[in-house]
């Protein structure tokens, strides 16, 4: 069923009785060409692009719970492509371009809102770094705009410009950045993939891999064995757990990241604001709540909930840069599990096991990457060659010394 304004109008006049489920609930078949483990944003996007761009429709997505129950439903919904390094920036810019056409492409309202993202500048050295970053963004075809303090005072008068420790000297805008309705991304991709023949199998946990003589022939699941020519793992925070079933250790630690939302307010924030020096970022959802967050808690965790020291730290960051936030009441906070990699950048690669592929290590930046991750993973699965913008996202890059370390932190996942 194709969605349109006319359809909504007609259904409104006929008691909304004509809507059908957006995707089927099929039984798993004994064999597929490609099995994707993980029904989150990246897994569903991969299935969608496999079917749509590469014509591979004999595909199943296996999800332990219900689709979109992991990080795609727990993030702070920001999209942007303001990266620095050549291994990353073209990939994220392709992702942003895919976001721009996504709703027309999969005929689903994902509420993509290019309301801009701003990184604040507090010193001359930081301005130099952001000018360099802006130039790197231009080289990849992205947009960037340097603003001085006077311009920011006019646009965002509520910020604490004369903060004693971090006075605001300017900022780096990416006007094409913004926010997206995160659940709708999972639903839209699921609907689009399902309509093209992909089986989305929920409540189906993978319990093992069928590996013989260095070749992966399928998976064991709680709903029986499923054979596949290719198995694509795409499970974010659970990467370590799932790949351990194949006997692999990864350059990844799982950490918990908390996020927060206030009660609904009238529109106060025009876009996304990031206060990197104070480890705080904030945007306002269309429902009115201020959505904000900060650092990861900093220790290995699979708990999907964090601890109070980071709550305090994030609240202090918010009060420091935007004192008016102190008047808002906190409605909820929650945690999600981040697959923090050793250099802060992701992997889309084959493994040493024939027929077994891995996509993960997205740290706390997986949501914005969803379309490009799906496209590049689909490309790798369909053609057995990396997509041109994802050639550096290799699992062996640490052994070869080709790290993609945006922050220059080294192999310390909780600092990325």
């Amino acid at each position, binding site marked *: 069923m194709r969605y349109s304004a006319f359809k909504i109008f007609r259904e409104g006049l006929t008691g909304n009785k004509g809507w059908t489920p957006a995707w089927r609930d099929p039984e798993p078949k004994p064999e597929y060409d490609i099995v994707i483990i993980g029904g989150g944003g990246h897994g569903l996007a991969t299935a969608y692009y496999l079917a749509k761009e590469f014509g591979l429709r004999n595909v199943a997505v296996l999800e332990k719970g219900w689709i979109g129950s992991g990080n795609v439903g727990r993030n702070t919904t920001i999209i942007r492509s303001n990266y620095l390094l050549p291994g990353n920036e073209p990939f994220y810019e392709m992702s942003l371009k895919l976001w721009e056409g996504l709703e027309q492409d999969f005929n689903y309202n994902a509420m993509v809102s290019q309301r801009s993202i701003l990184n604040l500048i507090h010193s001359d050295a930081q301005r130099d770094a952001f000018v360099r970053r802006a130039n790197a963004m231009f080289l990849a075809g992205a947009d960037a705009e340097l603003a001085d303090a006077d311009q920011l005072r006019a646009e965002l008068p509520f910020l604490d410009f004369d903060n004693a420790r971090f006075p605001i000297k300017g900022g780096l805008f990416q006007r094409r950045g913004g926010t997206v309705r995160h659940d709708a991304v999972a639903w839209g991709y699921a609907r689009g993939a399902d309509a093209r023949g992909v089986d989305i199998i929920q409540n189906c946990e993978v319990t093992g891999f069928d590996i013989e003589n260095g070749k992966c022939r399928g998976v064991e699941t709680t709903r029986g064995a499923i054979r596949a020519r290719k198995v694509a793992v795409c499970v974010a925070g659970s990467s370590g757990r799932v790949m351990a079933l194949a006997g692999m250790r990864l*350059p990844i630690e799982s950490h918990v990241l908390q996020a927060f939302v206030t009660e609904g307010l009238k529109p106060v924030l025009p876009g996304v604001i990031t206060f990197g020096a104070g480890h705080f970022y904030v945007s306002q959802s269309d429902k009115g709540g201020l959505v904000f967050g900060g650092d990861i808690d900093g220790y290995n965790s699979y708990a999907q909930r964090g601890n109070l020291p980071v709550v305090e730290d994030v609240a202090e960051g918010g009060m420091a840069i935007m004192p008016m936030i102190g008047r808002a009441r906190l409605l909820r906070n929650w945690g999600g599990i981040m697959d923090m990699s050793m250099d802060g950048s992701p992997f889309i690669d084959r493994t040493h096991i024939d027929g077994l592929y891995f996509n993960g290590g997205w740290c706390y930046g997986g949501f914005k990457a969803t379309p490009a991750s799906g496209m590049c993973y689909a490309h790798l699965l369909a053609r057995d060659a990396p997509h041109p913008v994802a050639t550096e996202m290799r699992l062996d890059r640490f052994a070869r010394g080709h790290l993609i370390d945006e922050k220059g932190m080294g192999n310390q996942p909780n600092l990325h």
Partner: protein
Amino acid sequence: MIIHHPLLGPRDAAEFVYLGDAALIDRPDWQAENAAEAFHAYGYLRDNPAGVHQELWYHEQGDRSWLVVTRNTVNHEISRVELARDVARARGRGR
């Protein structure tokens, strides 16, 4: 989280800096045949278990001792805290 320091008693985890898996105590032999491979695994690969995890915490805002904390990564429950020095010595290290 409260970490029960073997010398100082219960301390807020916010006083500590987290390093990672306590396997980092066992630095590979740099003269071994497979040193490059062993150091790659040591520096970059992790077990990353969901469940009991032994890990290194540094009491930066305290007595600056390194601790080996045994903690469950699924519910954050801490079951054991030892001085890293004692753990290393028990494994035959000089210091």
